[in-house]
């Protein structure tokens, strides 16, 4: 998965995070790809930019793993669209990945905020 670099303050998605974001988005109910992309961008207060090509490949990958299912339906404004919804397997994965992510961010936070005291002493 590649991320697209922009000159503004958008942050490129870390590898492996897109899957988690997609799963999280789908917790609120079935949604089509464009909706998922919009939702991620809005939820992140426009910080994350989702490369659409990568998004659809990620959706396909999740579908292949049977974490989500898809079927063609009609959107609110009467457009044909492919709607994705979470499977029970997907829900389990979401819980697991979320806790994994939280442990990661907590650890990152500890390292970054807990002032590198020992190093400072030596200098």
């Amino acid at each position, binding site marked *: 998965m590649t991320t697209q670099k922009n000159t503004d303050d958008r942050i490129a998605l870390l590898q492996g995070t897109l899957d988690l974001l997609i799963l999280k988005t789908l917790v609120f109910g079935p949604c089509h790809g*464009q909706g998922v992309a919009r939702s991620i961008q809005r939820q992140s207060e426009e910080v994350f930019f989702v490369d*659409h*090509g990568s998004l*659809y490949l990620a959706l*396909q990958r999740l579908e*292949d793993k049977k974490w989500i299912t898809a079927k063609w339906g009609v959107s609110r*404004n009467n457009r*044909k*669209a492919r709607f994705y919804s979470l499977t029970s397997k997907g829900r389990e994965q979401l819980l697991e990945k979320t806790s994994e992510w939280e442990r990661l961010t907590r650890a990152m936070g500890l390292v970054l905020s807990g002032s590198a005291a020992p190093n400072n002493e030596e200098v």
Partner: protein
Amino acid sequence: MFSRKRSVEDFAAEIKAHLELEADELQDDGLNEDEAHRNARVAFGNAPAAEERFRPRNRVPWIDNLLRDISFSLRQIVRNPGFAIVVIVTLALGIGASTSIFSVADAVLLRPLPYPNPQQIVRVWEKMPNGHQPNLAESNFEDFLTQNHTFASLAAYDYGLASVSGGTEPARVNVSSVSSGFFPAFGVQPFRGRLFTADEQRPHGTPAIVVSYGYWQRYLGSTTELSKFHLDLEGGSYPVIGVMPPGFDFPSDVSAWISRELDPPSPSRTGHNWRGIGRLRDGATVAQAQANLGAIAHRIRNQYGTQVDLNDAVVVPLSDAVVGNVRTALVTLLCAVGLLLLVACANVAGLLVARTSARRKELAIRAALGAGRGRLIQQFLAESFALSLAAGLLGILMAAAGVRVLPVILPADLPRQQGISINPAVLLFALAASVVVAAALGLFAAWRAGGPDLQNALSAGSRGHTGPRSNQRLRSLLVIGEIATTLVILVGAGLLGRSFFQLISTSPGFRTESLVTMEFSLPVPLDWKVDDLATERQVHLLDQIVMRLRALPGATSVGLAGGLPVAQGDNLPDGGFLILNGHNPPADYDEFGKMAQNQAITGHALYAVTSQDYFSTLGIPLMAGRNFGDQDTINSTHVALISQALARQRWPGQNPIGQTIEFGNMDGNLKPLTIIGIVGDVRASGLDAPPASVIYVNYRQRGMQQNSTPTILMRTTAPNGQIDSAARVIFHNLAPDVPVKFSTYAMELGGWLAERRFLLLLVSLFALAALLLAAVGLYGVVAFFVTLRTQEIGVRMAIGAQRSDVLRLVLGEAARMASFGLIIGIVASLAITRLLSSLLFGVSATDPLTFVGVAALLSIVALAASWVPAYRAMRVDPVSALRYE
């Protein structure tokens, strides 16, 4: 993946939906429609790229890759046509030659005979205690027929040339006399008309004749009314009752079949006059049949003791019997052509190694970009398949041309050669050969490319192009292999060539040049009854013909014989005779048989009917005694001449002149013969046989029998055609119904040599092609050696090396490869040429002269091939060489 695969179209539809949804939202945000669509597309990024990335998820990747590899290979071929052409032509040469030879082997050896359940059809022989396998004697055959329990049908047959008239013109053709089991043994129904009825298969029954498809077309005008035709055959008249289908050709080249049972049986247990053929009962094996007949033979032996000469029987599948000794020749050819294909492959492998070196950078980049080993192998296979299949196609075209040319050089007596064609089996062979070659070469190239040094190629800079020396070593090994293989083929060709020249320089015992031959037939009754009256009639006619021929301008002398010596090979009649030594001649053949039990008074010799002038015409010298003369008439003492070989063998240290012998078993005339002279030796049974023991009898006394092929031999100073037309008129006037075959002795002898000439020609051709390929391969390696070492050579010359030193360096390298190849080749040849032994004459399979000569030839060719690059190395300019990269 168990779920149904999504199609690319579905994916594209989803992206389209996305763009529309995005545009809708943008419009809601206040953009106009166009702007909304544009922005949606911009926001999405590269939609086709996304689709492209989706694609591989959805396909079987290796097919995709394969298609890409093939198109890549084709582009490579187009970009570098020289390489491709050399490879394709080299491989096509090998594949084409193998396919041509395979088409012959397929028709002659492999394809089943064109009869129902052909594996059940067998030939049958008696077997003597000394291992000889004679044909069947009439009474023994009757016992085999009535007592066996393993044959569905068993038949006796014989065949010979006969004059047949009653068709559109008289013809001298092969006619076969067959017993009632013959056609059932083959299980073939006539194409038109019917086969013999019971009434046509009993003594003194109704005569009838079945003709071949070829005879029916040529001499009966493909008539639908067979009943219109009665064929006259050796004094009898036979109504045509049936026509066999086109594929039925047994015995080979026979035009008509008559029933054997029309003639009353002539019981004998030692007259091996009948060939045996039969069809096994369902479920019976060849071994069982042989044991069955062997037991019957044993019973006969027990019952009659030494009055019979058999004690066993031999049963051989017809397919094996038909092919006979041709198998060795064909297997030799297949081996030679296989070796040629091997040399061609080695040559191409050498080219591939060189090219892989040149492509190392490209390959390294591909590997660096993530091409796995499998992908690289696949790419090489795609390339070698493209090249090999193109070569296979070209090879098939070459084989198709070859198959058209082959009949010209094929020996006329090669069995089943009408079936030689490019058929599915042959195409399959060509395809299989191409695929095997492609796989071998592709894997070989991939193995080379995957070597550990590939990774260094990128960092090796510009010098990386020349490749490591290990490649050069590998190419040297390939060339050594090529030289060794070529040597094997060359030795084979050399041995066959030496045999051939040994043969044709062997004197048959007389002068063969400017000798015209006229083969004809006389009406001889089939039942061995040439009585004195018939003989006198014959003699009268023959004398007239000879007298008129002798009067022709250009005719030096004219002889008459009952067969052509040497050229007819082992077709001359032979048999045992009795030395009477004061004994009374036997009164009948039973007594003859009893007397023949006494080894002390028997001998074995060829039987030749000749005229007085036969010896002077051929130039066979009279060594002792006198020749036939006018005093020898049918009523005077019957006389004989014998060959020196017989005199040496049967009367060592004695004078055979004046001895009386009994040879009536050959011509049905029990009048004893008195030996009156000894003549020079003739290799009558063939140039490859020792001088024959021959008993010559006078045609004026014995007449021409059924076992003779009356032939006039004329020594002439006139051009051929002139004699032919004049002689034709004489025959036409004196004997209008007698067909005559005009030829020259040289041509008849050529026919006898045809099989050897064919084998020699083809093996030599293959050897020549292999030699060329090996020379090209050696040239390539030596040239590359020089390229690799240009710098080194420059340095050497800069510090004072002479040009001759450089020459020695390069030629030394070539000589090293050549001598390795020669040594390996000689060792291999010593093992392999043994298989040729049965095809050789007057030269051993390990003939030192051939080995030395072939090694010398290969050395000279190797030297010549390396001379050009060596010369170039010698001219290297040290200054530019040092700058050379």
